[in-house]
């Protein structure tokens, strides 16, 4: 019998992505799994160009145990899709996440 905590599954877990930066350090291209594009298979897609960064914000949380520091970018992809991604400033890894 599993306990209550075991049975919980987080919703909206960040999904890893590979992001190329431009000269000023803003995201320029993104490569991620198909599921993030709403497709069923889980293959990596070809890199997609980021047309514009619409908004950025930063979150600093849980500094009292294991600090979480992220910079979020709301971007417009080539083709018009809207996406939110963030860089984990502790590990410098990129993720995609619904806001």
């Amino acid at each position, binding site marked *: 019998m599993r306990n209550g905590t075991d*049975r*919980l*599954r987080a*919703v*909206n877990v960040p999904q890893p992505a590979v992001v190329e930066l431009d000269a000023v350090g803003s995201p320029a291209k993104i490569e991620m799994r198909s599921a993030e594009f709403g497709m069923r298979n889980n293959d990596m897609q070809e890199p997609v160009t980021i047309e514009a960064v619409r908004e950025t914000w930063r979150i600093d949380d849980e500094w009292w145990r294991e600090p*979480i520091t992220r910079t979020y970018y709301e971007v417009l992809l080539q083709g018009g899709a809207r996406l939110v991604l963030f860089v984990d400033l502790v590990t410098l890894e990129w993720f995609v996440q619904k806001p």
Partner: protein
Amino acid sequence: MSSIFGIYSGPTYYPTMKKTPHLTSESAACCWMPLFALRSETARRPELVAHPVALVASDDTRRVWQVSPLARRAGVKPGMTVSQAIGLCPALKLCEPDPVHYDEQFEQLIAALTAVSPVVEPVELGRVFVGTDGLEGLYGAPEKIVEAIKCGMRNVLNAECGMRNAECKGKRREANDPSRKFRTPHSAFRIGWGRGKFVAWVAATRAKPGETVLVPVGGEAKFLASQPLAVLPLDPDTHRRLQQLGVKTLGALVALPEEAVVSQFGGPGRRLWRLAAGLVSEPVVGRVVPEPIVAALTFFTPVGERGLLAHALDKLIDRALGDPRRSGWRVQVVRVRAELEHGASWLVTATLKDPSATRERIAAPLKTQLERSPPAGAVERLVVEFTAFAPGTAELQLFAHDASAAARAGRRRALQSAAREIALRIRRPMLYHVIEVQPWSRLPERRYALIDFEA
């Protein structure tokens, strides 16, 4: 008698035969018996034949629905109020409608036609199309095919009016007065044969009772040209406008340039023009006979109170929804039959615009009908039938709308049953509750979580 509460444009599926393609046929025979309900009534009550007779409308018992030729001669017309009709014809015999009986008679007829051709498409009470493609090998030329159709119908109708063939022939010989003709149902069937349903239907309307009009392939335009405008499926406004333009026959309509008709009447104008020109050939589409889900209740004492009937309706819908064959399917067409005291009946059919598996949504149109046109007497037996279905959500038909709807209604048992079925079929937990964990959190993944739904 039946009501349509919306038009569902998507596909209709039947659980038992969802992968069976529809059979179609381009060549069609249209079998048409005007006043089918009234003729069914007089066939089982021959004493009525010598009198002017009218059936009362089942949805408005103050009005007359179908009128026998004798009553029509006295000036009685369909749609008149009963008091007007009796004022015009004091000898008029008024009959309570028995839609269930008429439906059964029609179903027998369709079954007989199915023995002649596998492609049978009923349109309304008393009108049915029979696909005749490929029947040449069995019966021969179209004339022979039509003869086989007539023979099939004759057997049913003779049995229906309790007469053997020889007796019927004898009756036909002596039948010169309209009342006798009215009594022998097979003599009232008109058959039209041609390419496509429209041509066959127009041919049937041109046929005399008991006779056939055949339109040879290639001769559609010539046949249609002389037909009156009224054979087209026109709305009254378009009909009036065409009349004002001096267009009285299909030939006159076709003589106008197609584009001119389109510019006047839009897209429907093009269809009308093409129908009139014999360019549209709509095939007969064989119906797939669904296995209906039926729930019935016989009352200890006949019930007349609407509140009680509505309650019984709810219970029967619940029972039918609980049928395992309904799992993963939403109900699209629901029919309620009631057997009344003194042998009458009541019938309501509702086609749901949005197919549903929720009792309230299925019951709503039926209850509206119950309020608007209640049964004419106390109900002895009430039957709910689900006769057409649409699939549940594409993602997971098993779960479909029913479980979520059931959950909303607090019907936990139905939800648990759906969950168990899903677990059995896909062998891993796929159902979760969404629970709030830290809805205020700035970190999106901390706000909500999924927890297994345990049946």
